[in-house]
């Protein structure tokens, strides 16, 4: 296997691992917050439905965490196994957040074990809720630290390169790089948003399948409210991300927007196709790109003409970007209409059609997460460390990457099937109605 092949298969394997891991990682970051909100509401309102919600979500969460943990271990090792040259260089500058991530993960793992096995152990339920806080913090901070590493790959700083030697290394400066604030905020808020919409889609699905229990209605309304809040936050952060890109990674923004020539008052291109370097069938929104990039309709936006051919990312990232943004906007609308509709008692938000829209919202949000990461990673090409190291220089020279790709693909298939089977069985076997009835019986037994 030549080195070109090693590079190719290393990229495919990394992409596969990340694409699979991010599903479970997103859920792993977002769900603890949802559980926390539900349990807190339950204690505050003395409403056992919310408590049960927290309890049932926790059970599902454990399954996804398990897959998240093991695939996270896989990507952690693959960084060194597939990109040894990159890790040798990056390890010198950005090892600190990677190291801190293991602590956050440690913290989360310990308290998850405790939280899981101490339901009903405390007289005061608030004590049990307290145990969840470190889980949520640990989960979110894992995401923060890992995203910092990714931000560093996009906007490396905190060192100088003199004669190919790293000098003046400042690990803290490397962490607080320009890409970090928007990237971290975006990853967190989309994880919360996606998790809320996934839980919402489960609730809507149960209602569609004939369950008329108030539990599902409460779950649906709660998750749609949370989803709405975080989708608005995501939109605001997205605006800042645009400004970050314009300033620090103009080639990524220009490629995503098919903005070929540098000029003032740049329009935003939505959708369309590229035919021989010409954009066709696109929706053109005048001045919008200048506003996105610089908050000024007449501002100059740097185009792809400013960059040598070999430094430009593939132009198909336009579709990834548009897909992500479209889904984000769509979900904001779906949740906004639902929440307002419930308040104002609009009848159409209670129809089967609308519930189906919500059901599809969960998987759609996850697709948006995937599109977003593909956009982030492909949009950084040809660099692994922007401006410093090219992807092909970073890959392993080992000739067995193709075989490993097959092995890992098999692994992810097994994990996907296993987790889906287990999760569906878990909730099918033990429905909300049944569990509530069981608990009532238990209580009666205690009273007698």
């Amino acid at each position, binding site marked *: 296997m030549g080195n070109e092949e090693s590079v190719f298969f290393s990229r495919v394997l990394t992409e596969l691992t990340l694409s699979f891991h991010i599903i479970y990682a997103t859920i792993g970051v977002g769900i603890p917050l949802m559980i926390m909100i539900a349990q807190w509401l339950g204690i505050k309102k003395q409403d056992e439905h919310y408590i049960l919600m927290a309890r049932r979500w926790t059970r599902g969460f454990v399954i996804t965490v398990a897959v998240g943990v093991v695939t996270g271990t896989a990507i952690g*090792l693959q960084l060194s196994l*597939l990109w040894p040259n990159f890790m040798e260089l990056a390890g010198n500058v950005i090892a600190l957040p990677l190291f801190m991530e293991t602590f956050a993960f440690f913290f989360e793992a310990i308290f998850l074990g405790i939280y899981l096995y101490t339901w009903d152990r405390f007289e005061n339920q608030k004590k049990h809720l307290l145990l969840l806080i470190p889980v949520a913090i640990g989960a979110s901070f894992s995401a923060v630290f890992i995203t910092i590493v990714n931000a560093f790959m996009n906007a490396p700083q905190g060192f100088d390169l003199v004669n190919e030697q790293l000098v003046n290394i400042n690990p803290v400066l490397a962490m607080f790089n320009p890409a970090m604030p928007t990237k971290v905020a975006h990853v967190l808020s989309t994880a919360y948003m996606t998790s809320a919409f996934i839980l919402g889609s489960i609730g809507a699905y149960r209602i569609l399948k004939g369950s008329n229990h108030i539990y599902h209605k409460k779950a649906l309304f709660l998750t749609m409210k949370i989803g709405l809040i975080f989708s608005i936050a995501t939109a605001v952060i997205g605006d800042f991300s645009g400004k970050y890109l314009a300033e620090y990674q103009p080639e990524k923004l220009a490629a995503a927007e098919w903005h070929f020539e540098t000029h003032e008052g740049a329009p935003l291109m939505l959708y369309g196709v590229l035919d021989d370097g010409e954009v066709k069938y696109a929706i053109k929104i005048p001045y919008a790109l200048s506003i996105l990039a610089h908050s000024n309709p007449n501002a100059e936006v740097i185009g792809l003409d400013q960059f040598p051919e070999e430094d430009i990312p593939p132009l198909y990232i336009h579709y990834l970007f548009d897909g992500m943004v479209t889904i984000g906007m769509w979900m904001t609308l779906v949740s906004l209409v639902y929440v307002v509709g419930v308040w104002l008692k609009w009848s159409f938000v209670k129809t089967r059609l609308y519930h189906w829209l919500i059901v599809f919202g969960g998987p759609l949000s996850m697709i948006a997460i995937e599109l977003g990461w593909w956009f982030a990673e492909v949009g950084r090409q040809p660099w692994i460390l922007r401006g410093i190291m090219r992807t092909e220089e970073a890959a392993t*020279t080992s000739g067995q990457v193709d075989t490993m790709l097959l092995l890992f693909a098999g692994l992810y298939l097994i994990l996907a099937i296993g987790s889906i089977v287990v999760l569906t069985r878990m909730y099918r076997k033990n429905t909300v109605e049944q569990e509530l009835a069981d608990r009532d019986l238990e209580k009666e037994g205690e009273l007698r």
Partner: protein
Amino acid sequence: MTLELIGVSVLWFFLFGYVIVASIDFGAGFFNAYSLFRGKQHILTRIIQRYLSPVWEVTNVFLVFFFVGIVGFFPKTAYYYGTILLVPASIGVILLAIRGAYYAFTTYGGLTHRRYTYLYGLSGLFIPASLSIVLTISEGGFVNEKQTGIELDYWALFTSPLTWSIVVLSLAAVLYISAVFLTWYANKAQDEPATELLRKYALIWSVPAIVSATGIIVELKDHNPEHYSRLFDLWWMFALSFILFAGTVYLIGKRKAYGVAFGLLTGQFLIAFFAYGISHYPYLLYPYLTIYDSFTNEAMAIALIIAFIAGLGLLLPSLYLLLKLFLFNKDYVQGKRNDHA
């Protein structure tokens, strides 16, 4: 103490932690599967499940901590070990992944088939075998530096008696450590039949553990004379380790103080592990890589050490809470409480 030494000691200590907690976990899985095979599952399963359920995820973190930490403190290891370990480490991580995920699927998700119990038990033996290969490779003689990069010589690796002795040691040690710990745990749970059975396992596996450990030292004499002579300089540490080993076996044999026995066992492995580590100094990979030429810059090293101390301040109380609520909680250990979500 230099920064290099602090870094490598911290990592070595965490690796030791992984060896102990993972051994307990791997061995427990194997004993569980074996007892199912022999139709004695009713004796062991409950006790093993009760110990493993709240802690399984924590085990994995020790390993992640080690490999993230070693790339942090010694970035050059990413290049050397990253390149040569592609296949063995990938296989190890795939086995770990299947094992960890299916543990959760069966414990929390209600998948209950004999197949999974066997899968879980056997993977627990393959994982230490595949991970222990890294120690063999670190002894040198299996890595060639070529124009295109570095390569692992699989043929030499798999035909070397050293490789197989280390594999045997890892398996014997896993089963021995696990049996001693679980004897103590079963005894705390006042589970008489389980204690007796596990005690028998502990005594059986003590023999191959000590024999294979001695065998490796002898084989190193041929394979890596430099390391062997440094090992020999530390004979007193190995002697001390052996005394602790004898103490464990004595207490288990006499059915006395299982807790102390496990304490002695931890001491035995700690001393032997560090004696091995110290004699390996300064090499991370004979003869290419030492802790000095692979070390990170000073700024990063100090930042990592500060992060480590801060992290430890957070972790130690949490670990204590975990142990207090489950390992040292009588009601929980004896199965009077479950409180699972």
